[in-house]
């Protein structure tokens, strides 16, 4: 009986309906996976594949310093973005003031601007010949500009915080726009002061949005190139800047590709942590998404 059933079962046929997936896969393979494969291949040396360059690069103090700086700058900037973004979003969403809606809309505009623009603006304000230094030198009759943080790691962190804070604010403002204001009023009637309400009522509701925005910020700041290059801070070498230096200035493509692979692994690792976090906090505990 079973044999008969097997004998009469129709042979599996390739369904034409599934062919729709072929064109996007082809585009993805051509534009993304193939170049990525080339980078990975190049990182293994020009002739027989070897991990020798990996070992050499991963042990170099220059690379370790760049990796450390990349992580410090990315984590600090993201922390700055989270704090600034949360506070600004709270004010825009919950503190009524004229122009709050306009301020909310401006967030989108800031996201649309190129990153170097903020850096350029910072140069005009905080740079050696910028507005702040010129004013201070004029007022206090100083010979040298007193404010010089811009050309350091802190300048990069400040610029990245300014550029990427809107990426935190956008999901936060979306969350706050659907937040039940009655929860705040009831909490207040129960004797909770503003800080407790923010901590125990608003923050848990904002957690998924903070995680989403924060993870995006972390990914973007780990890979940020333009701001670091534009500021030109002395001794601030991050992984993307190191890749640029090795590939374009030193023509050392193998080392550049090794660092690029590390950068990719770092980004994918961060993305995995983000997915894990969002499924844990966002779905189960926050009860919001």
């Amino acid at each position, binding site marked *: 009986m079973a044999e008969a059933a097997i004998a009469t079962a129709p042979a599996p046929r390739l369904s034409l309906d599934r062919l729709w997936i072929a064109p996007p896969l082809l585009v993805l393979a051509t534009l993304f996976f193939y170049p990525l494969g080339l980078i990975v291949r190049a990182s293994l040396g020009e002739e027989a594949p070897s991990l020798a360059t990996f070992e050499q690069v991963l042990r170099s103090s220059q690379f370790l310093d760049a990796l450390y700086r990349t992580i410090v700058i990315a984590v600090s900037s993201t922390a700055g973005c989270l704090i600034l973004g949360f506070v600004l979003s709270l004010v825009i969403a919950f503190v009524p003031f004229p122009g709050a809606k306009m301020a909310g809309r401006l967030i989108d505009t800031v996201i649309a601007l190129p990153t170097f623009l903020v850096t350029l603006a910072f140069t005009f304000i905080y740079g050696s010949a910028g507005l702040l230094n010129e004013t201070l030198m004029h007022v206090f009759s100083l010979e040298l500009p007193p404010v010089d943080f811009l050309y350091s790691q802190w300048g990069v962190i400040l610029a990245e915080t300014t550029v990427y804070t809107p990426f935190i604010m956008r999901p936060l403002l979306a969350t706050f726009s659907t937040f039940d204001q009655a*929860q705040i*009023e*009831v909490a*207040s009637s129960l*004797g909770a002061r503003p800080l407790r309400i923010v901590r*125990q009522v608003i923050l848990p*509701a904002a957690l998924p949005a903070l995680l989403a925005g924060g993870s995006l910020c972390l990914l973007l700041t780990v890979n940020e190139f333009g701001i670091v290059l534009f500021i030109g801070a002395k001794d601030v070498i991050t992984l993307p800047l190191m890749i640029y230096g090795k590939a374009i200035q030193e023509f050392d493509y193998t080392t550049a590709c090794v660092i690029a692979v590390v950068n990719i692994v770092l980004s994918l690792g961060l993305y995995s942590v983000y997915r894990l976090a969002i499924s844990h906090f966002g779905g189960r505990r926050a009860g*919001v998404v």
Partner: protein
Amino acid sequence: MERTPFIKRNPASTQAAAVSDGSRIGFENVSVTYGALTVLHSFTLTVNPGEIVALIGPSGSGKTTALRAVAGFVRPSSGRILIGDRDVTNLAPYDRKIGMVVQNYALFPHMRVDENVAFGLRAHGASEDLIRSRVPECLSMVGMSAYAKRYPRELSGGQQQRVAIARALAPRPQVLLLDEPLSALDAQIRRSMLDELAKLHRDLPNLTVLYVTHDQSEALTLANHIGIMRDGRLQAFGDSKALFRHPPNRFAAEFLGRANLLPVSGLKPADEGMAQVRFGGIALSARNHHGLADGSDCLICIRPHDFRFSRSAAEPNSVSGTVLSVQWQGDVHNITLNIGGEALRMSCPPMTNPPGLGETVSVHFNPAEVTLVPEDGARG
């Protein structure tokens, strides 16, 4: 440091003393304006300790604004709000010692039921020992002990509202503000919750409650006194039964109980607070509860259930008209009659042979059960 606000360990001894003078709600000429728009006009009202006062009125009448002013979410442009002897007009909501329940429950979704109930206690710095004893007590009060470890999303609407009530009562507030608490529930659960609210107040007789609703049946079921509002003004206020039986004006009569109001004239006083009036050519008797002047034109207020079918048009206090509609609603028949050009509603127990459309019928009423109402010129 543990603060001791309005949470008392021994409710029987301390709360009664505190509530007797500390739980009165007073509005003294309270006005609320938004720009050029005044939404509450010189509102004056007192809710005595242990009373339930319902504020009812149509949308935009100012009833919720009045409640929010007590809660501290609306700042009056003039006047004073008192809770007990304290002027709370300029106090922040968290300093007012109130409990509040809103229409959509507003439970904190990330907290379990017991954590929701403990929120107010923690906000007031209550000790963990007190929280451990008070939370089960409050959950038991509303029959939710078995649901302490659930999240709000795991509860039905009625259960969520019970938790919201337990949460509001946990810190032993002096006054409880209920803002349309049953509006989001379906009819059956609403009736059951009404019974439970009434029982809750019997268990907590010292609790002063300000109850805002647009549902007159909720107000009549629960409240000792009812305030009827329109356009930011208090149109009528009084004992629930008295207000229903003897509404002071047209709006109160129409809003509370959908009374029939027939225009009458030629008021003549009679014995025992009664008066005679004329509706067209027909002489009718009614209570002159509001002492309307002799000869004045006014309205006779007859509730739909006060009508009875007459055997003949010659019976005293009888009017005749044609049947416009007949609706059977299970336990009641609602009939609309055209009497002298006025549409008149009557409701009576279900009939086996209700009158047919267009049929001429006579109905009468007991004059002691109807009242004369001054014509205030405004139709609701």
